[in-house]
């Protein structure tokens, strides 16, 4: 407390002195600037002194040497520091995490409510709108080569499987929506189609084949022979009865 006050007082004093001296110093500096610069140049590179012995050359040489030494030092120091950090950071982090109780902390802070609240604060459409502007989409799409992408990612086997899976239900639903009969009736010239079919068919040949298969003569023979047989039987029986009647009329029996 005591020392703090003393430092404070010293700093205040220095600041006060500086503020008091500053205007004067500024004026002095303005007046003395040009002669000082000229003097300094003369001191650094005095006339008639060989270049290698001038103050500037010597100063440069020392500076370069010091810089090399410093950089070396820094490199070594950085290496050292990294080693120390490598050692320290895990230990410190572990210690810190242990101290904090990170899991508990996250569990306490990241609750459903807080996440919901956080999400609720985000205007997602606006964010998407900001990111996905027509310009960005155009840019992204112009960078795409659909053919190359397709070739790269669409394995024919996979495509085949996908089609086999997706096509049947798709087609079924599409067909359910369509009145195919009506579509055909409106768009297809059925008369011309049937004419083509008829032209292609050898109707005469087919008819002949069918007739050959049917064996018409045998059918006619069978169907008529039944009737004919009945008529013939009746006629024969009548004739035989008549024979018998005539024979009995003439008073004799038929002989064999």
């Amino acid at each position, binding site marked *: 407390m005591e020392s703090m006050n003393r430092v404070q007082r010293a700093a205040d004093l220095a600041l006060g002195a500086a503020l008091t001296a500053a205007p004067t110093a500024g004026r002095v500096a303005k007046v003395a600037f040009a002669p000082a610069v000229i003097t300094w140049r003369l001191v650094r590179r005095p006339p008639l002194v060989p270049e290698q012995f001038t103050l500037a050359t010597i100063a440069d040489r020392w500076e370069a040497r010091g810089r090399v030494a410093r950089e070396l030092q820094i490199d070594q120091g950085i290496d050292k520091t990294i080693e120390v950090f490598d050692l320290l950071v895990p230990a410190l982090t572990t210690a810190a995490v242990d101290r904090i109780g990170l899991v508990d902390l996250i569990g306490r802070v990241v609750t459903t409510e807080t996440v919901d609240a956080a999400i609720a604060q985000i205007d997602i459409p606006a964010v998407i709108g900001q990111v996905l502007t027509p310009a960005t989409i155009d840019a992204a799409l112009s960078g795409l080569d659909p053919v190359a992408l397709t070739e790269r990612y669409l394995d024919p086997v996979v495509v085949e499987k996908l089609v086999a899976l997706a096509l049947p239900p798709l087609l079924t639903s599409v067909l359910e929506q369509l009145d195919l009969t009506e579509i055909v009736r409106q768009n297809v010239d059925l008369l011309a189609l049937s004419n083509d079919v008829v032209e292609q068919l050898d109707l005469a040949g087919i008819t002949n084949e069918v007739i050959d298969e049917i064996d018409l003569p045998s059918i006619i023979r069978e169907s008529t022979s039944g009737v004919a047989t009945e008529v013939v039987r009746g006629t024969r029986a009548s*004739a035989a009865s008549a024979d018998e009647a005539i024979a009995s009329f003439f008073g004799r029996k038929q002989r064999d």
Partner: protein
Amino acid sequence: MAAERTVSDLQGKTAGVATRTMAGAVDYAFIWSIVGLSYLGLAILGFLINPRRFTWPDVPIGWFLLAGFVLMFFYLWLSWATRGKTFGSMVLGTRVVSLDGDRLDFIRAGLRAGFVTVFPIGLFTCAITPGSRSIHDIPLATKVIYHYKVDQLSDDPNPVQERE
């Protein structure tokens, strides 16, 4: 049924006058149909040759009769010499055989055919003769029997063997 049983019982017995007359009528109808159709064919041929000056062929009635008798003779001859059945016989179920039941030979069949063609009325004599034999049958030693067993109008594979 009774009629059918009668018919099958009669198989092989000599046929009566009614049956034979009906068979003869069928044969006459058949032959004269052929003659008529021949005349029609002649007319059609004439029409095809010269349609513009077509007239019905002027055939004397005697020619028709002659054609009919000639046709009848050869028809009967061939029919009796081969199967013993004319068309009329097939319909009525009769057959011409020799007295011992064999098929007629060519000479006897030809003689009988000529006799029947020239003197068809002789058929009716079978009504009064013993054994239902007509005037044609007696000199040639033939008879006409019921032959129903081959009950088809067409095929008669073994007519000679099929009798009782």
